[in-house]
């Protein structure tokens, strides 16, 4: 089955990429943009989903600085 993993900076952790995007948007004329956070989308095909959390904790995300969520998409 196909799984989609979303990894993002933990709340409260400085996100320089998000800040850079946030300040770039008004420069293009897009006003009214609030906080921006940049994360990572990982799609993978797996045979069993009982290992998903372990995969996320050990490799796909770094729990010290990131949080993750995953869902089966097909």
């Amino acid at each position, binding site marked *: 089955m196909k799984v989609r993993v979303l990894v993002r900076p933990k709340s409260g952790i400085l996100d*320089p*990429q998000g*800040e*850079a995007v946030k300040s770039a948007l008004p420069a293009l004329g897009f006003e009214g943009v609030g906080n921006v956070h940049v994360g*990572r989308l990982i799609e993978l095909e797996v045979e069993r989903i009982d290992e998903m959390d372990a995969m996320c904790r050990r*490799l796909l995300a*770094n729990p*010290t*600085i990131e949080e993750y969520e995953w869902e089966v998409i097909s």
Partner: protein
Amino acid sequence: MRIGVAIFPGSNCDRDALFAVEQMGADPVELWHADADLKAVDAVIVPGGFSYGDYLRPGAIARFAKVMGPLEEFARAGGPVLGICNGFQVLTEAHLLPGALLRNIDMRFVCRRVRVRVESTETPWTSGCESGEELMLPVAHNEGNYFADEATLKELEDEGRVVLRYLKNPNGSANDIAGVCNEGRNVVGIMPHPERVSDPVLGSEKGLKILRSVLVGARI
């Protein structure tokens, strides 16, 4: 003394580190990422570069390379390990050092010489320095912004485990931290590159002060 330098695909300071080991007067030993043992080295340097292209996160993939198994064992047994730049990132990903290295606060790759202060000489990699000594060392990184949660930072400060501190913070790192050590003090991670200042022809040999520390008190 035999000093190993771990080499991953994408490491690019491995040659510099091997050269610096020679400059120290020790025997350099190449440790390939697929090696299953550490070739009886007395200390290990995990060099800078972009191991595995920095894919996913810097150091995230290197952490699972074959050579990391014996390296982790060596570190947990008290063997001296020094992670430089990407090597520092690898050691945090491997949980041999606390915290993580985030993107530089201004999103710019920083490549220049910076002044750092030696905050602790109680590690095998700084024992040859003087406490409070200031060194001018090169940095070259995109993710050098040290992060750890409040409790961990307090622990590092209280236990004197901040090894190097920037005088002028180049990347946004917490408490101006440029290098830390583990609880056992044998594993040290630093963002500056001492191997790049290991010969007068490179403009300075200040880096040898750090690297040569490991020879002090070692079985040579």
